[in-house]
């Protein structure tokens, strides 16, 4: 369950931002999660509730903006969208793909009080 460790990372980021920007409550934590990143958004929501309990982020809602997987196809020399790591180029069927986007795992914004 590496999602637990990642959620601990989110809580640490929120606590640092709270010290720096003086807020006392977090209503929403907005994440950007790429389709080819290491986490499932649903698992993050589940783990976050447990990890955030009794912290400044207690009760905060996780919102996830899902970003598409993007790869450069070396066979047809163009940027293509893929949903999974083991998918071929949707245009030419080649597996000669270099992932260029969709690996993001970011805390994008916080809605705070």
């Amino acid at each position, binding site marked *: 369950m*590496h999602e637990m460790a990642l959620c601990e990372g989110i809580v640490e980021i929120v606590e640092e931002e709270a010290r720096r920007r003086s807020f006392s409550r977090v209503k929403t934590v907005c994440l950007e999660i790429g389709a080819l990143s290491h986490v499932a958004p649903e698992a993050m929501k589940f783990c976050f509730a447990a990890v955030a309990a009794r912290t400044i982020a207690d009760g905060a809602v996780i919102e996830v903006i899902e970003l598409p997987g993007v790869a450069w196809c070396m066979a047809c020399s163009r940027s293509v969208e893929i949903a999974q790591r083991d998918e071929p180029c949707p245009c030419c069927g080649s597996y000669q793909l270099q992932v260029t986007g969709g690996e993001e795992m970011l805390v994008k914004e916080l*809605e705070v009080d």
Partner: protein
Amino acid sequence: MDCGADPAGLKIAGMSSERTIRIERDILGKNNRIAADNRARFLTDDLLVFNLVSSPGAGKTSLLVRAVSELKDSRPVGVIEGDQQTSNDADRIRATGVPAIQINTGKGCHLDAAMVGEAYRRLPPLKGGILFIENVGNLVCPAAFDLGEACKIVVFSTADGEDKPLKYPYMFAASSLMLINKIDLAPVVDFDSAKTIEYARCVNPNIEVLTVSARTGEGFAALYAWIWKQAANQRRPVGDALP
């Protein structure tokens, strides 16, 4: 019933204390910063570091026992072992005369950069040598955590089933080398090497592949040649920067 006051007890029209802050911070940022520090220290110490990952039972420790026994006379070698519990693996490495630090992750499913940084501090000096990090046996979580290594090596055993690269694509995508271990068992388990390599290259077209047997020693000469090639690659940029 009060519909107006915010938690600070204030109500100013159009001036809610509620606000949205854009921060755009990487969730793995802290681990990645520590991994970068580890990597800088490894380069300063002229150390080549490999992060070995696999499912439990693929033979990482047996492979390391043979490799460190055969490499230790030519240069300094050290091992960092990661398991949820026990020091069995570090004990096996130490029996070869090579220093090893065991990290027990408890409930954790992977090593992180801070654990490795701390374990490295506890090892004797390995300047100019090789450090092997044996990660927790798990084909999922360790893929996400950079430890500061030169590269990841995924160990795959012939008894694992050819489609492991498709089932656990992140680990194979994150690794530079796939070591197919237990090749001596291949005929017994009807292992299809070509199919495994085809699947691995579906998720990582650049992955290199070597076949070995930790039991018989088959393929280890090629593995060592690969390691020396990595050592030369790691040194080259430093050498090029010299006047």
